[in-house]
């Protein structure tokens, strides 16, 4: 329980340090959602797979780049905990990519069909 609360506080403090970036990202995402919301449901369903593919590709790139971004390397992955942490972080970055790609692709798909 303590570790969970500690982790939440760490995430909160990190977010406080980058709040302008987070705010801009949230506004952009909401704008994307708002623009794409009007699209027909079939456009959303048709683009979930492409969005996931984009997310997976971004996750792979993130996994390769994240260690270097903090002064580490893939050769510094000492054991499974390190790999697990790296993959979890990469998956989170990929998840953000999916969150942006899906409405964006759905909106573009709808415009193309219109």
């Amino acid at each position, binding site marked *: 329980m303590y570790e969970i*609360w500690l982790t939440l506080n*760490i*995430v909160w403090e990190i977010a406080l340090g980058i709040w302008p970036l987070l705010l801009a990202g949230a506004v952009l995402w909401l704008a994307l959602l708002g623009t794409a919301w009007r699209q027909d449901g079939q456009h959303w369903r048709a683009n979930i797979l492409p969005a996931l593919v984009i997310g997976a590709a971004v996750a792979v790139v993130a996994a390769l780049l994240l260690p270097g971004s903090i002064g*580490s390397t893939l050769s*510094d992955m000492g054991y499974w*905990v390190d790999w697990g*942490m790296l993959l979890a972080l990469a998956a989170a970055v990929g998840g953000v990519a999916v969150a942006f790609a899906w409405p964006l692709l759905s909106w573009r798909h709808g415009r193309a069909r219109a």
Partner: protein
Amino acid sequence: MTAIPLGNHKHLETNMKKPTAFPPIDPARRRWLQAMAAAPLVAGATTPGLAKAAVKTRARIVIAGSGLGGIAVANRLSQLLDGAKITIIDRKEEHNYQPGYTLVATGVWPVDKVRDRNADYQPAGIEWVKDMVASFDAVANTVTTASGQRIEYDFLVVATGVHLDFAQIAGMDVAAIGREGLTSVYPSPEAAQATWAAMQAFTAQGGQAVMTLPATPLKCAGAPLKMSFMLRDRLFRAGTLDASKIRFQSALGNVFGVKVVNDNVLERWQTLGIDVEFSRALKAIDIGARRATFSSPEGETQEMPYDLIHVVPPTRAPDAVKNSELAWKEGPFAAGGWLEVDKSTLQHRRFPNVFGIGDINGTPRGKTAATVKKSAPLVAHNLVEVIAGRQANEAFDGYTSCPLITREGSAMLIEFDYEGRLTPSLPMIEPLQDSFFAWLMKVRMLKPAYMAVLKGRV
């Protein structure tokens, strides 16, 4: 914030008399404080869902020091108490994230990442006396500042930190750090920054580096080891390792107080080519000539030339504690003048209205930020219990943590208790494993954790 004017205490509504016997405060006032504290207690909870009503009290609480421990306890007490008068005494306006000094000194972080302002983290409603504590009178329950101000208290939290005793090293000049190969990560952000500059100059050419370790307790006992590991890594990356020699001079019979970690580090250093000599205490330094003098317990001296030296100063309690009744009078912590607290409750062993937090405590281990992280909630809780007329009832196990950097990009996450047992917080953590995760924690997660502790949330 204005300080309490000397001699003018009418607004404090006290009829405190000079105590003559234990308990130290006036019995009538003590009963009144206990009655006010009979309201439901707030648990020393670290999760928000367990918030309870704050304890009503008019107690005057003085916190000596505004480092991590002082401010963390102040924030917690502000949440746990309703009506208490909390006074922080410290001249320092800058708040330094000291665990980041080794990252600054080895070129991983810029110096501004370790500099903040105390004013940004102190709780609202407290009184900040911008002065240093000159003396403690635990019998009279007063603190006297350097400017002569006398401040009375009902309860005291000693959070002064340590005194870096560079004066024990003849010829040492803190202002010269960064010049002539002289380095030290301990004194300040500026010293850490100057240490990095000196390290860069050294690694560009190579030479002989001498790393030191004194025989006293240290804050962040891992720092001298981290500096040695990182220096070796910087030399390797600069391509001057073959032209260099690193010699670690320990004044003790080991390099780290936890045997399994000590043995692991020595094994690594043997592989990395870092020579170690024991029972070698740094006694003097000739900065211009770049010569250091070490002495052995037998009194033999040895001069050693260097191109770069990392000076780790002996540490002791600040004079205000060391020269007071609050210091240990006998035993292993007496020589350093450390605060005489019960190692479990962190309550003073002879003055029960006094608690200690952080590096000042005379306990077997624990001069790290991680120790404060685990002990600040306990100190605040135990103090509130005592304010309420009860006994301190939470026990501290001496938790200490040291992310021991082994090279840029990797570290070991060492956690242990008073007994020197490794106590990883998460079951999957391998303490002696070179780890990206431990490095990630050190460079990206520990400062946010520190800030949460500072604000009294963790």
